[in-house]
Every structure is written in C-alpha cells, then in structure tokens.
C-alpha cells in the first residue's frame, strides 16, 4: 500500500516535470520573419583585419593554455591515482614533506616566462589594431547608439540612416577601410560585429573609434554588447559590405531627399499631423524629429526596429499599430491610429525608397 503510493508520487513528479518541460519548449511564440541571410557570428571566422589579428593571437593563447592544461591536468590525475589510499593500507602516516625551494623556484620562474611571451605577443596586436594609421581613402562613419537602435551618419556625403550600415569592401591592394566614430545619445552601448572586429563601447560624453576593412562582400550581423536597458536584446546590428560600385550607388540614392508621390497624400498628412514628426525625420518634408530613426529611405532597409523584424508590409503596419508587439519596451509609443489612418501611413512609408 505504502509502496504503491510512493511509486505514484514519483511518477506524478516525473510527469509534472516532463509536462512542464514540454510546455516550455512549446512556449515559443511568433517570430517576425528571420531577417534575410544572417551569417554566423563566429569569432573564429574573421573577415576583416582587426578580427583577423584577434583570431591569430587567440589561437596562440589557446594553444599555450591547452599545453598548460594538459601538463597540470596530468599531474593532478597522476597524483590522485598514484597516491590514493589503497584498500590494504597499513594506517601509517606518509612521511611529511614541508616543501622544496628548488621546486618552488622552478614553478615560479616558468610561469613568469610564459607570461612574458604572452604579453609581448599581445602588446604587438594591441598596437597594430589600436594605433593603425588611417589611410586617406578611408570611409568615415559616425555611429550613435540610442536606446535601442543605431544611427549612422556619413558626414562627408550627408547621409543619415539607421540600423543597417553600408560599407565598401576593402581590397588589400587598395585598402578602403571604414573608420567608425562611436558616440551615444543616452546610455552605454557596444558595437560588435564578431566577424569584422572586436567590440568597442559607445559611451555618452565620450568619443570612441574603431575601424574595419571587410575582405568579402556580404551581410555581417552582430548586436549591442553592453547592457543598455529594457530592449538591449533586440538592438541588433547589420553591416552590408558592398562592392565599390554598389556602395557608391547606395550612397548616391541615400543622399537624395525623399521622393514623395501624390498617391499617398492622406498617409503623408496623417504622418505630418501626428507626433510621428517629433521623433522621425523624412528629409525634404516637415518631418525633422531626431529621437527615432530617420525614415527618408526606410524602404531601402531589410529590417525595422533594429533588426527585430523584417521590413514587410505586415510587420511595418503592426509596428506602427503597436511597437510593444514586436519589441516590448521600445521607446516608440503606440499612436492609437484608426485602421484607416494606419493603412494610409503604412502606404506613405512604403513609398520612402
């Protein structure tokens, strides 16, 4: 009787455990379309000089660490096996050994030498990444971290855009690296594209900088790496490495003011008579807010809300209707628009190419 109750209890607990685990696994809900083509963010697949340099030093450090581990681990296991008390122990105390100066000296000097070697190798990389001379052909970008999105400015060509950074591929023979000046509008953030370079923080009241010289065209993803508030997790980052021609074309387009047709007058009116324009800019119109992303060429971007959703009609409409549904805690308020206004505004935004 008692036994069966026991068994039932155990089964009950196990069942509960299994059910809750299954429930958790199913608890995943809608995801707003995986953004196109996110490449892996493996730090061991570098594609730009700073990431390359880090990769080489890290392999060197890993090898040394592995060697140290192997030696000490073997010593540890050997002494555990060799010196364990046997079953037929005579109960006598082993001879006490209080220490040995030679041995201590050996295992002091050896680590010091290892540290010296590691340090010299490291200092070389620090110098070559941080103190690299800026070539004249370098592209200059200013990245400004906001809670929870990225603003990018190209001061020499007058472009302001958001979340998706375009840079030209850099041919080692004629390097065209991109130098990024890092600033913050509010809290700390950190710019991290693992395949292009290590991270550098964006700190208010401070100007940092970093550089990349991507060797291959493609899309490189990363994300904010310094906790910056509620939606730190969805502060994603995409770098588009274009060919020289693609990049120039993109830059030309992006420098144009918005081309707004008459077909979307109603949407434009809604946009320009609600608070949207306090926060968003559309160049060439009255909208010149700077709190949120510049929308002049919104439709040239693959994603919205800093990579939180792909830039489709449904997502865009949902975003304007209720940003919380896509990115809870984002600083864009739901504007309580009627369905009609919502459709009109979405249509207007969709002309901003």
């Amino acid at each position: 009787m008692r036994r069966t109750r026991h068994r039932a209890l155990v089964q009950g607990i196990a069942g509960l455990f299994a059910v809750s685990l299954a429930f958790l696994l199913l608890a995943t809900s809608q995801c707003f379309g995986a953004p196109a083509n996110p490449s892996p963010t493996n730090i061991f697949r570098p594609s730009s000089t700073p990431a390359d340099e880090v990769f080489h030093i890290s392999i060197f450090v890993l090898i040394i660490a592995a060697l140290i581990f192997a030696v000490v681990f073997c010593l540890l296991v050997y002494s555990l096996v060799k010196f364990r008390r046997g079953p037929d122990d005579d109960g006598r105390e082993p001879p006490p050994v209080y220490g040995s100066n030679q041995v201590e000296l050996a295992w002091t000097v050896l680590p010091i030498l290892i540290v010296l070697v590691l340090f010299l190798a490291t200092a070389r990389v620090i110098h070559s990444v941080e103190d690299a001379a800026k070539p004249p052909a370098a592209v200059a970008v200013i990245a400004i971290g906001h809670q929870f999105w990225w603003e990018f400015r190209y001061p020499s060509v007058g472009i302001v855009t958001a979340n998706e950074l375009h840079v030209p591929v850099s041919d080692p023979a004629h390097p065209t690296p991109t130098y990024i000046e890092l600033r913050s509008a509010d809290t700390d953030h950190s710019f991290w594209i693992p395949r292009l370079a290590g991270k550098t923080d964006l700190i208010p009241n401070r100007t940092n900088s970093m550089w990349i010289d991507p060797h291959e065209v493609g899309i490189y993803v990363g994300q904010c790496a310094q906790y910056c508030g509620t939606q730190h997790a969805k502060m994603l980052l995409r770098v588009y490495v274009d060919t020289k021609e693609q990049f120039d074309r993109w830059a030309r387009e992006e420098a144009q003011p918005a081309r707004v047709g008459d077909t979307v007058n109603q949407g434009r009116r809604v946009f320009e008579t609600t608070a949207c324009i306090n926060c968003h800019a559309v160049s060439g119109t009255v909208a010149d807010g700077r709190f949120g992303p510049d929308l002049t060429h919104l439709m040239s971007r693959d994603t919205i809300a800093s990579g939180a959703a792909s830039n489709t009609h449904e997502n865009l409409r949902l975003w304007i209707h209720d940003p919380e549904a896509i990115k809870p805690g984002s600083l864009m308020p739901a504007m309580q628009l009627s369905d009609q206004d919502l459709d009109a505004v979405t249509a207007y935004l969709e002309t901003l190419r």
Partner: protein
Amino acid sequence: MSSDSIALNPALESTRPIGDRLHDWVTTVDHKKLGILYILYALVFLVIGGIEATIMRIQLIVPHNHFVSPQVFNEMFTMHGTTMIFFVAMPIMFGFANYLLPLMIGARDMAFPRLNAWSFWLAAFGGLLLYFSFIGGNGLYGAGGAPDVGWFAYAPLTARVFSIGHSTDFWTLGLLVSGIGSIGTAANIAATVLCLRCPGMTLGKMPLLAWMNLVMAALVLLAISPLTAAQIMLSLDRYLGAHFFDTQAGGSAVIWMHFFWIFGHPEVYVLVIPAFAFASEIIPVFSRKPIFGYPVMVAATVAIGFVSFTVWAHHMFTVGMSSYANSFFTISTMIVGVPTGIKIFNWIGTMWGGKIEFKTPMLFCIGFLFQFLIAGLTGIMLAVAPFDWQLGNSYFVVAHFHYVIVGAILFALFAAFYYWFPKMSGRMYNERLGKWHFWLFLIGFHLTFDFMHIPGLLGMPRRIYTYEPGRGWDIWNLIITVGVFFQAAGILLFVCNLLWSRIKGPVCTSDPWDAWTLEWSTSSPPPEYNFAAIPVVRSRRPLWDIKHPEDPDWKYE
C-alpha cells in the same frame, strides 16, 4: 592542550523554552553563533539567487521564449548578481571566518564581539533593503520594481532619467549598509588574527586559513571603501543634483566604471582567497601530509592581494582606453596568474606522496582544483586585451566567472561545509548523500558552464532576454539550462543532508578527521568559551605534535 573542556549538559540546553533560545540567537555576540547566523542567512539567499538564475535559464532555453518579460528578465539578472556576490558569497565567507578563526588560533572569541553582532545585523538589513525593492521600488512614479540596472549598475542607467522610481535607491542603500557591515567584519578579522593568537603561535605558525583570511580582510577594507564612496556619490547625483555620473549634465560614465571595478576586481579575491583557505586546510588532512611550501603559500597570497589592486581596468578593455593602458592592464592581469599557479602546484605537491582519502570534502576540493585550473586559463585568455575585445560581455565571460565563483569558490565552500559540519553540529553528515551531491552537482556544473563558453565564441552577448533562432546558439542554450536542473537537485540533497544530519546524524567525536589544527582539540560543538585553558602551540600542526610526540613538527619547521 585543552581537549578537556568543561562539558555543558546538552539535555539542559534543549529543555529551555524556545523563546529564550531564540532570544539568545538574536542578542548573541558569540562568534560561533554569529558565524552560523551568517551562514544560514547566506544559504537562504543562495536559494533565492538560484531561483532567479533558474528563471533566466528557463527563459533562454529556446529562442523567442515568452516565459518572462524583458523587464522581469533584467530584474532577475540584476538581483541574481547582486544577491550572489553581496548576500551569499561574502556573508558565507564571513560566517566561516567568524566561526573558525578564534577556534583555529586558540582564542575565546573575535576581538570585538559587539562589533561582530552589529556587522552581521547590518548585512542582514542590507539584504532586506535590497529585496524590499520588489514591493517598494515603484515609489510614487508607479514605475520600477526590483532594480534592473545590472549588478555593476553602469552609469548613466542609474541616473534619474533612466531609472525612475526607487529601485536603484534600494540597490544603492542595500549595498551601502551591508558594505559598512563588511568593513566592520574585516576590521574585526584583522584585529583577531593579529592580536588574539594563543601563546607560541607566531605569524609563521598560524594556520594558512588565518593568513588567508587576514589578506581577505585587508582587501575588504581597501575595496569596499571605493564602492561605498561611489554609492554615496550616486545618491548625491540622484537626490541632490550632483553630476558625478550623470552624463546628461556632463558627468562621466567611465568614472563610475573605475570606481566600481577598483572594488569589483579585488572583490573576486575577497571571495576566492577564503576558498583557497579551505582547500589549504582540507587537502593536507585528506592527503595525510602537511601543506607543501607554507611560506610560499603565504607569500603568494599576499602577492595576489597586492596585484589584485592593479588590474581593475581589464573589465574595461572595450571602453576605448589607449594602447598603453590596455597593455598595462594586460600584463598586470597576467601576473596574477603566477602566484595563482604557484598555489595550484603547491596543492598538488601536498597530495604528492600522500595517502589520499576520497571523502566528500576531499572530492569537492579536487573539483575545486580542476575547475580553478580551467577558470585561471580562461582568465588568461580574457587578460589578452584583443581577445577580450571579442569575448568581453559575451557568454564566454559569463562562463569564465561562473567557473571561478561556482566551480572554484562554491566547490571549496561545499568542501568546507562537509569538513566542519561535525565540528559545528557535533554530528556526522551522511557520506553517501554527500557523494551523490558531489556527482550531481559536478555533472550539472559542467553541463551548464562548459557549454556556456560556446555561445560566447559564437557572438552571443550576455544580458539578453531572448535571441533569434538560426544563430547557432539554440542547442547550447538548451544544454546549459538542462544542467541547471542537475545543480538544483544537488543543492536539494545538500540541504536535506545538513538538516537530516543535524537532527539524526550519528554523534561524532571532537576530532573525526584525525586533523591537526586547534579547532579539533575542543569538543564538537565547542563550548561557548571554546577552550577551558588557552592552548600553547609550538608548530603549525599542534595536534600532530600531541599525537606524535616521537616525531613532532616543531623539530623541522
């Protein structure tokens, strides 16, 4: 020797009304009772912090999970970190120091018993203040709740504009108050070790545990002060319009980082040096050999203490320091590896040629050694500034410091629990349950924290409440979370073992391990006055000298 303590009648003790006994505990100034209070208090918070960690891990088990909201997740990691460091690890170390130091140096109490009680109750009050934020953090603004600024609370997230309500204030006040308690305890420990050693116990003859706690106390005194100062400055910012860290008014976010990490890095050693102390007492006893290279161990500890104050900015390799500063903090951090390595070798040297007995305390010490070795090596990787540009603030770092705090410190703590439990309770723990605890926890630990390195290498930053599928992180996060349940099962066995053994465990002698330091010369549990007659010692292993009069240590030391 004072093995002949005046026995109190235990039956008499247990017949006293419960109210009286409770009153005793609340008003006690006895170092043993305060030690146990510290430990129990920390264990309660350990369970709370563990639950917070479990909530986070459940949220991250699959991509796009909706178990908790981002807000709650952020509160969880803030509370988890703050709780584990300030209200688990520190008080538990203070608890053991309180309990053991007077016994091990042949004293009747700590140097300042009333200060001791005051420090404990301050620490306890600090913890309550922090947790009161769950109720009171809303303040008049209706926003807030528990703090969500991260355990290192980087400015300007703590400024009034970004942190409305009172949650940050509870965080600040909790740490401020418990910090004052920590400073009191540290002064007490230093005074006790320096002034109350029994006759014959010169500095060179005191147990390594005493040495290491002395260094720990010095670190607390030096490290908590900048933290306290920073908390006061933050409060001034928030309420009197000062602009130390308020970047919107020209303050500096980086200054906060310096203040925090000049505390934060030595803090790691505040926690790990007592863990070294446990290993240095337990490994010799279960290897049946004296510690190898005592003077070198002391020197290495003191060296770590000094060097630990020169490395803080390795937490800031990504804030854009000059190449010279980055190089300096690289080398200073790597140098810590030298005395630390020496220690590992000395522990192995102690086992070498011994007769190792794998009782639960020793098993945990071996786990400690193995995991501390790996933690040290990943530490060297993070010391390489360029490597840190990639690894910093990623899950690799999270794995690294949990290897230190769980893999090394918590394992050493479990060893200490099992080793001194018979002394504290007068009863033996259950060896079988202890071994189950060890293996379950070991498996859980490695499932969780070995695999946690990998998403870091794959670009997963810490402190994100969710992630998108297809980044190659899913499977690792699943494994990490599964490990948590093994660890929880281990902890459950541990708590059961303690409770059960406290009530039903077999009564044990004063010296169940055939050990050599003074605490084993008095009864288990020791009487209030510890020793009927103050002992006199001639070597580092006074009980060895008594047990082996034909071959005493003092002839060789």
